[in-house]
């Protein structure tokens, strides 16, 4: 099992998948610190 506690996480989302703010909420609930968020959109 991975451990994100104390990790610096880059959240790279995509509009047609999971957006970055959702990734951020998830990893922060696991004890990580988010240092970058980006949601790509190819439309």
């Amino acid at each position, binding site marked *: 099992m991975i451990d994100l506690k104390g990790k*610096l996480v880059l959240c790279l989302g995509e509009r047609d998948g999971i957006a970055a703010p*959702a*990734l951020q*909420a998830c990893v922060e609930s696991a004890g990580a610190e988010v240092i970058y968020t980006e949601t790509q959109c190819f439309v």
Partner: protein
Amino acid sequence: MDLEEQANIARLVESGQKDRMVAMLGMPNPASTRMVAMTLQEGDPSYAGPLAGIPLGLPVYHILEDQVRQIIDPAVYENEVGPMEFVLDGAAISKALDAGR
């Protein structure tokens, strides 16, 4: 991953603490997931962006992987990922990432 995003990530990694950095992806399919993972681990495979020839070696995970879901607060996961878990092919995405590890 576009050129601006590659440049942003390159700057972040150069600023230090690379050993603590992890990428969490939310791409919708195995191909896009694998492409971003390759870029963050081995460098830009298209040789078009700032990460061309720069193997960052960052650990890369996808939010739909079982090993990731297990460590996320279930209520948060349900609220944030929710129905997309059933729309997207998490097993195929996990397989694509495993192939590159």
